[in-house]
């Protein structure tokens, strides 16, 4: 839809038609004491030339380091066609369409996105997306509390191997609603959530169990055992998954005997650039029986009065513009632009293409782990299968190794010491399909040189890196 702004003449004509002298007259109902007038700490506007230069300088400050960091956002190749098409005028919109008669193209695309996500996760239905993986987990928890009518406790078991940002975000969103998040420890050998540690909750009223797979450490969980345990307890199961991994791993709809109840996660790996942290999108899928408790937009397919297929927003009575305080969520939008990119990405790659991406990621990460742990001071921390990420333990201070690696224009991995101090000098590393063998060798060679400089006895003067 083209944007046609008012001209000064249009404005004067409209004001004359309603008998107002100028635009300020239209606001004279607002008491003078409430009007700000001028925003005192907002600087004056800049010219296009000035702002372009400012943005270039800022972008350069980020640099373009060689990325070996995952931890929830992954540096995948995005085919040029994805954003060529997404930025076309017909698609380029952030928002969900209320006017079905004017938005069939967008609605059809969202419907196809939903179909793809449901297929990928092995679930019955998907919504039109949420803001990001972290808030998607929070919404899934609230949904489980609403949907599990037999459980009154509002206690949710959340493994510590779930992404720390997701746990913090979920806590922020749910704890004022009387929902208790109970932490479940992980194994120090395997990095996974051990089913035995759940025994202490047997016979208690647990509303839901969250399972992230692969978990934050990249480790594969015992999804069937954990899902089966939760369902036997009358708890719902919320799966948090990586969409790329689903090309190879068993989808949440097949976990345990009945599959999980809600599957959610971060959609960034599907054609969305890292972009310094966002915007990304969250996905959520569920079983058919729970669809009325699912938050977010849902697009449905139907027939118009002439019998032709049409698409429209559906099940809107769950949403706050109708249900108000009893709505399933306060969210009333989706991440339309990113969903468009993800749908085109998936359509271009297809199931086979996505599987190849996943295989390449895994192969590269294995190569990275082997190359780096060839050094005597580095070893894999956990002894279980992983997917496209792994934790390495260093037997020298990690900070002394990371600093010089940053100086060599590398993003060597995610330092776990803040979130998991009990792991000591531990680094979460990742190599996607975009890292070549030469990249991995570069990282390994730099690391070896840096460690040698730090550990070779003799010279008491340690080099000081900036």
């Amino acid at each position, binding site marked *: 839809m083209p944007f046609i702004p008012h001209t000064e003449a249009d404005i004067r004509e409209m004001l004359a038609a309603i008998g107002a002298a100028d635009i300020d007259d239209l606001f004279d109902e607002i008491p003078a004491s409430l009007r700000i007038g001028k925003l005192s700490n907002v600087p004056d506007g800049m010219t296009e030339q000035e702002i372009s230069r400012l943005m270039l300088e800022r972008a350069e400050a980020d640099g373009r380091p060689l990325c070996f960091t995952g931890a929830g956002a992954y540096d995948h190749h995005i085919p040029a066609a994805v954003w060529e098409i997404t930025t076309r005028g017909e698609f380029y919109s952030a928002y969900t369409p209320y006017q079905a008669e004017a938005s069939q193209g967008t609605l059809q695309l969202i419907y196809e996105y939903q179909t793809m996500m449901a297929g990928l996760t092995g679930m019955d239905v998907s919504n039109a997306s949420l803001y990001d993986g972290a808030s998607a987990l929070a919404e899934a928890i609230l949904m489980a509390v609403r949907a599990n*009518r037999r459980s009154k406790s509002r206690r949710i078991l959340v493994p510590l191997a779930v992404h720390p940002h997701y746990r913090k975000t979920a806590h922020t969103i749910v704890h004022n609603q009387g929902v208790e998040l109970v932490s479940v420890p992980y194994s120090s050998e395997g990095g996974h959530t051990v089913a035995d540690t759940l025994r202490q909750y047997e016979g208690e009223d647990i509303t839901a169990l969250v399972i992230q797979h692969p978990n934050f450490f990249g480790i594969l969980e015992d999804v069937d055992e954990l899902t089966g345990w939760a369902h036997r307890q009358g708890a719902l199961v919320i799966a948090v998954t990586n969409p790329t991994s689903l090309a190879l791993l068993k989808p949440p709809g097949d976990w345990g005997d009945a599959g999980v109840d809600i599957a959610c996660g971060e959609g960034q790996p599907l054609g969305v650039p890292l972009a310094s942290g966002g915007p990304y999108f969250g996905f959520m899928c569920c079983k058919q029986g729970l669809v*009325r408790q699912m938050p977010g937009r849902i697009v449905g397919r139907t027939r118009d009065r002439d019998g032709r297929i049409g698409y429209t927003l559906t099940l809107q*009575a*769950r949403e706050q513009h*109708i*249900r108000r305080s*009893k709505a399933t969520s306060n969210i009333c939008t989706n991440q339309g632009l990113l969903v468009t990119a993800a749908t085109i990405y998936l359509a271009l790659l297809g199931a086979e293409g996505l599987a190849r991406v996943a295989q390449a990621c895994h192969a590269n990460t294995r190569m990275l782990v082997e190359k780096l742990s060839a050094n005597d001071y580095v070893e894999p921390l956990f002894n279980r299968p992983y997917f496209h990420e792994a934790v390495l333990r260093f037997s020298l201070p990690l900070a002394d190794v990371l600093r010089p690696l940053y100086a060599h224009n590398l993003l060597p991995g995610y330092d776990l010491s803040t979130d998991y101090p009990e792991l000591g000098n531990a680094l979460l590393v990742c190599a996607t399909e975009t890292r070549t063998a030469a990249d991995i060798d570069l990282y390994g060679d730099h690391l070896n040189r840096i460690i040698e400089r730090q550990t070779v006895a003799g010279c008491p003067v340690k080099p000081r890196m900036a």
Partner: protein
Amino acid sequence: MSNIPVDRKYSRTHEWVSLNDDGTVTVGISDSAQEQLGDMVFVEVPEVGQNLDATEACAVVESVKAASDVYAPVSGEITAVNEGLTDSPETVNQDAYGAGWIFRMQPADASELDTLMDAEAYESFLASEAH
């Protein structure tokens, strides 16, 4: 002019309540209510065994344009729910006072029924609400 049978009582939130021989009551929504809401697409029934206070929300009727709470007209325990409404929510439109019943409950205090309106009072109530 909607249908208001005289053989039952009515609440200010448009539920009808009919007393059964075994002392339980059957509850649904009035013809006027179903007309206002429009075509039903979903009814969320309460759980059998649920204990409720009078005026507590316990069910939801969802139409194409609105989702409305249904309130317990008296305090008591849910003894039965109309499972058929899951597959055929339109029954509430077609037969609001018969097959469109939503739940049955055992009242905790039979005297609470006296606080409800009879058909004539409900008719006046609807007329006054219309303004």
